[in-house]
């Protein structure tokens, strides 16, 4: 079909002849440019949301209903039994606290140290800095599993085994974060720093009062990503923490999966509960989280 854009010159007056041609958008064009993409996106949203909705509804089904045939989308009998048992079985308050401490402290230190390292790599001239930068770049190419054992030995020998510090310390400096900041600071003109120095600003002042505010978008992006990484971290807390009072949420959740069978009712409910803090954080910081996801594909 041909797009129906027509010029309708008004007959008669000179002013009518001078008026620019008016574009009339047909219904088909509106449908093609607006309704169709929107409808397609809603279909995709529904498809993406369906498993999540199924997951949420399954958590309020009676255990006997979870696998009954035919499967039903809505619970035949609504039950909060799984939530009650999950709450009784796991000390959520303790695990939330531990995970929050680990994620918050690590994120705070990660952002600060990565910003400082990235700034130094971008703005200071020293041959050793280039070597140091190359070493950091090399780290991004190593799978985390390879570093797991050496990190465990270091943490143990530093006397931080079975402490939250033992989980926090090795996670602080992420090579990805350093490079995010380095790449950003490289784009900041050197003249800005020179001008600040002429005005009498000292190096720390330049960093804290000029560079950090400039790097706010990258700072928030790394903060969001780092928090998500640490919140979902499993392997390192598992090998470092032995006292259940210091367990993080992910370890606690995994204990619900037994050797031979899984109590899905409890596991589903516990998983929903464990998601709540991150959902709240998402609702508060969704603008930054969305922008941070543009950097998807970053490596922990």
């Amino acid at each position, binding site marked *: 079909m041909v797009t129906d854009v027509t010029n309708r010159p008004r007959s008669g007056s000179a002013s009518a002849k001078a008026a620019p041609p008016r574009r009339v958008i047909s219904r088909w064009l509106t449908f093609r440019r607006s309704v169709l993409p929107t409808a397609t996106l809603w279909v995709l949203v529904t498809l993406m949301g369906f498993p999540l909705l199924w997951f949420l509804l399954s958590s309020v089904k*009676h*255990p*006997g*209903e*979870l*696998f*009954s*045939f035919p499967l039903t989308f809505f619970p035949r009998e609504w039950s909060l039994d799984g939530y009650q*048992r999950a709450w009784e*079985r796991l000390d959520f308050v303790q695990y939330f*606290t*531990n995970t*929050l*401490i680990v994620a*918050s*402290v690590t994120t*705070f230190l990660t952002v600060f140290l990565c910003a400082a390292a990235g700034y130094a790599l971008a703005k200071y001239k020293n041959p050793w800095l280039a070597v140091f930068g190359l070493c950091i770049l090399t780290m991004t190419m190593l799978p985390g599993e390879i570093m797991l054992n050496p990190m*465990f*030995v270091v943490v*143990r020998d530093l*006397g*931080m*085994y*079975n*402490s*939250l*510090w033992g989980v*926090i310390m090795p996670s602080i400096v992420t090579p990805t974060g350093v490079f995010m900041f380095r790449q950003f600071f490289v784009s900041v003109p050197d003249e800005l720093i020179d001008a600040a120095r002429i005005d009498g600003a000292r190096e720390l002042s330049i960093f804290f009062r000029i560079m950090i*505010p400039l790097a706010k978008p990258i700072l928030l992006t790394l903060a969001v990503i780092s928090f998500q990484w640490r919140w979902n971290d499993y392997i390192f807390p*598992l*090998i*470092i923490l*032995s*006292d*259940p*009072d*210091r367990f993080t949420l992910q*370890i606690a959740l*995994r*204990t619900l*999966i*037994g*050797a*031979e*069978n899984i*109590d*899905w*009712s*409890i596991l589903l409910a516990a998983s929903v509960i464990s998601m709540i803090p991150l959902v709240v954080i998402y609702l508060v910081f969704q603008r930054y989280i969305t922008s941070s996801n543009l950097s998807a594909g970053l490596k922990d």
Partner: protein
Amino acid sequence: MRTRTTRLTTAAAAAALLGLAACSNGADSGDVSLSIVQSGDGQQGGALQHMADLYEEETGVQIDVVEVPNADLRTRLRNSAQAEDLPAMAFSPNIDPVWTDQMLDLTEISESAGFYPELNLEDPNDGLIKSLPSTLTAVGMFVNVDLWEEAGVEFPTTLEEEWSWDEFVDAATEVVDSTDAEFGLVMDSSAHRLRAFLHQFGSKSVWLEDGEAVTSPETATALEYFYDMHDSGFMPRSVWTAGDDPSATFKSGRVAAYYSGSWQIADFEETVTEFEWMSVPMPQQPVRATNYGQASAFVAFDGTGVEEETLDFAEWFYSAENYEIYCEMSRCLPPMEGLDIDYGDNAYAFEIYNGEIAASSGLFELQHIKHMRSNYLGTAVDSEPLQDETVRYLNDEITLDEAIENILTVTTETREG
């Protein structure tokens, strides 16, 4: 605005650090406290916690039950050993060479508890018993009573009533034909279950003679029978070849029978509410047999500073009076005879399991003891050639002869004689 944000950030960090400091590692003080690491489901974990509470009431000694993810229990104990931070005790799925030299001698407790003789596993290096069975686990069969009743087909309910695999397949096929059931049987994808199946056909599975793996002709007969049950659609192919969840398949109510084990009873009591289920004797062709073993090994560690208290708890836990309570709560089979355990409505099921175990002793030694011995010697491997090659056979990747040849070859290469 910026100043306010900075203050808030600083305050949050300070609060977090204070919290962190409060949670940092520190030595326990005051009364004696023993930790026991395990990976139990709700039933077992709850039962052990109950025992810990009882023990504290009686003695004042606190027992901390530490639940660890089952798949990572081995890693966890290894790291604890390397960090010289082993717990006082653990229910471990296997014995690990990393900490075998730190295990306490439990011989006296083993003798006083009176375990089945084949469960007294000695360390081949020094002849001491350093691990005790947590509970017993055995292979068994469940039926969906509603489907069988709807089809009007009978099934045995006591050990006196026997049925062969041919009779079982005929009966279950009739159930499938007469109801909306989809499959006659579903079996856990596990070498443990498959060995029981082989035993029932008269095979001793695979064993070692002079360092070489051998098997009997009945193994081929059983595996061919197993293949036919999949090929005909009597069993779902997706469980063994694609990792589908057999328990969920049975719980859907569309399977006549489920070949699984005693550990399902506690779960079924809670989660199967849509139909009636029942534990039944397994078919025999012609051998009555199950495959059984210890669910996990109780071990206690040296160098913790609380060795004496640990042994006291172990002795208390494995006394008949207390172990009965543990079995009743965790719905598990005891590894010793002569206990009076009240399983409630499902007492008949445990009688069936105990009867099948009694009929199967001897077979157990071939499978389980050697595996545990390998654990002590540090030669145990995680591979299960019986299961791996059977899956390839079911997938038509290899023939039956090739499957058996591969099973024997890999077993010879990987197992200690």
